[in-house]
C-alpha cells in the first residue's frame, strides 16, 4: 500500500488544472449557445420561441450524465472518434446553454418594457434596440446569477471523469485505488473543488448585493 503523499497532491493539482480548463470550455461554448437560446426565447417569432423553449425543456429534463453518454457514444457511432475533452466539452456546452439561456432570458425580460418602447420611438430597429439599449442593461442584471452558475459548471465537470476525462475527480479515484485512504483523498479533492468554487460563490453574492443597492 502506498501512503498518500505530496506527490499525490501535486497530481491532484495538475488534474485540477484540467477541471478548470474544461469549465472554461464549457462556459465559453455554453455561453455562446446559451446567448442564442436566450435571444430565441425573447424573439418576436413564435417558431423560434417554441424551438428554444423546447430545447431548454428537453435538456433540463435529462441528467448531465446521460447527455455525456449520448455525446460520447453517439458521436462515436456516427464515425467521429472524439477525445474525452472534446466530447465532454460539447456535452457541457449543450447542457450549460439550456441553463444559461433560461437565466439570461430572465435578465433580458427584467429590463423594463418601457426601455424597448423608448428605443423603438428613437427609431432603432430590433438589432439596435438589443445591442444599444437592452443587452447592456440585461448584462448588469445577469452578472450575479451567471457567476453563480459558473460554480455549478465547475462542480458538474466532475462528471466528465465518467467518460475517462482525467479531471480532479478521476485523479482522486485513481489515487484512492492505490492508497485506499478515501477520506484523505476525497477530502483533499473536495477541498480543491471548494477552493475553486467558494471564491466564485462569494463573488456572486458580492455582485448580487451591489445590484440590490443600485436597485433600491
Amino acid at each position, binding site marked *: 500500500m502506498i501512503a498518500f503523499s505530496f506527490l499525490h497532491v501535486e497530481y491532484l493539482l495538475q488534474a485540477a488544472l484540467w477541471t478548470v480548463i474544461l469549465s472554461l470550455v464549457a462556459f465559453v461554448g455554453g455561453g455562446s449557445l446559451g446567448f442564442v437560446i436566450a435571444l430565441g426565447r425573447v424573439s418576436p417569432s413564435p417558431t423560434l420561441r417554441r424551438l428554444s423553449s423546447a430545447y431548454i425543456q*428537453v435538456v*433540463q*429534463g*435529462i*441528467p*448531465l*450524465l*446521460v*447527455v455525456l*453518454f*449520448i455525446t460520447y*457514444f*453517439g458521436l462515436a*457511432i*456516427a*464515425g467521429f472518434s472524439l477525445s474525452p475533452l472534446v466530447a465532454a466539452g460539447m456535452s457541457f456546452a449543450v447542457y450549460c446553454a439550456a441553463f444559461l439561456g433560461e437565466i439570461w432570458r430572465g435578465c433580458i425580460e427584467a429590463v423594463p418594457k418601457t426601455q424597448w418602447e423608448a428605443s423603438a420611438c428613437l427609431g432603432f430597429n430590433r438589432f439596435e434596440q438589443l445591442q444599444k439599449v437592452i443587452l447592456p442593461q440585461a448584462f448588469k442584471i445577469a452578472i450575479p446569477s451567471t457567476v453563480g452558475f459558473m*460554480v455549478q459548471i*465547475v*462542480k*458538474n*465537470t*466532475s*462528471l466528465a*471523469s*465518467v467518460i475517462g476525462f482525467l479531471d480532479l*475527480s478521476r485523479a*482522486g*479515484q485513481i489515487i*484512492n485505488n492505490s492508497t*485506499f*485512504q*478515501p*477520506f484523505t483523498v*476525497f*477530502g483533499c*479533492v*473536495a477541498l480543491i*473543488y*471548494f477552493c475553486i*468554487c*467558494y471564491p466564485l*460563490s462569494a463573488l456572486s453574492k458580492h455582485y448580487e448585493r451591489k445590484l440590490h443597492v443600485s436597485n433600491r
Partner: protein
Amino acid sequence: MHYSFDFMSVFVNWPRLLEGAWLTVQLSALAIVLGFVLGTLCALADKSKIWLLRALVKTYVEIIRNTPLLVQVFLVYFGLASIGLKLSAEFSAVIALTVNVGAYTSEIMRAGINSIHPGQIEAAECLGMSRFHVYWHVVLLPAVERVYPSLTSQFILLMLASSITSQISAEELTATANLVQSETFRSFEVYVVIALAYLALSFLFRAAFWMIGKASFVRKRKLGTNL
C-alpha cells in the same frame, strides 16, 4: 456511416430498466422528504440566537454547495466504509443525496422564512398562539408556499442528479442502463431511451409536485391568489 440502429435489444430489457426507474423514484423521493426536513431544520437553526448553531449551519451549507455531488457520494460510500461503517450502495446514495439537497433546501427555505413579515409573527403572538403554533402556521407554511416553485425545481434537479449514484453501483436507472449497454453494446440506443425515460420522470415529478401543491395550499386553491 454504416450503423443500423437496433432499439429492440434495449426494449427486451424493459423489466430491468423499469426496476431501475422505480429505484430512481424511490431514492429521489426518500432523499427529497428527508432533505426537506433537514433543510427546514437548518433554515430554522440559521435564525436561532445560538451563535455556534448558526456557524455550523453556514459551514455545512457552504461546504455542500461548493463541492460536487460526485465527490460527496464517494466520501459517503468509500469514506464511511474505510472507517468500518459498511453501508449498501443504495443507503449511501440516500444519505449523500439527502445531505446534498438539504443544503440547497436550507438556502431556499431561509429565503422563504425571511420573506415573512415580522408583523405577522407579532400578530400571532398577540393572539396568544404558542411558539410552536406561530412557527408552524405563520412562519413555515406560508414560507413553503412562497418558495414552492424553487423547491420544485431543486427537487427535480435532485432526481436527475440521482443518476450520479450509478457511480457507486446503486442499481438505479443509469446503472441499469450501463449494465444493459455492456451486455448489448448498443450504447447510443440505451442512453437515448433512458434520456427519454428521465424526461418522462421529470414531467411526472413536476405533475406530482403540482398536485401536492394544490392539495396542501388550501388558501391558494380557494382564493387563487399568491401570498
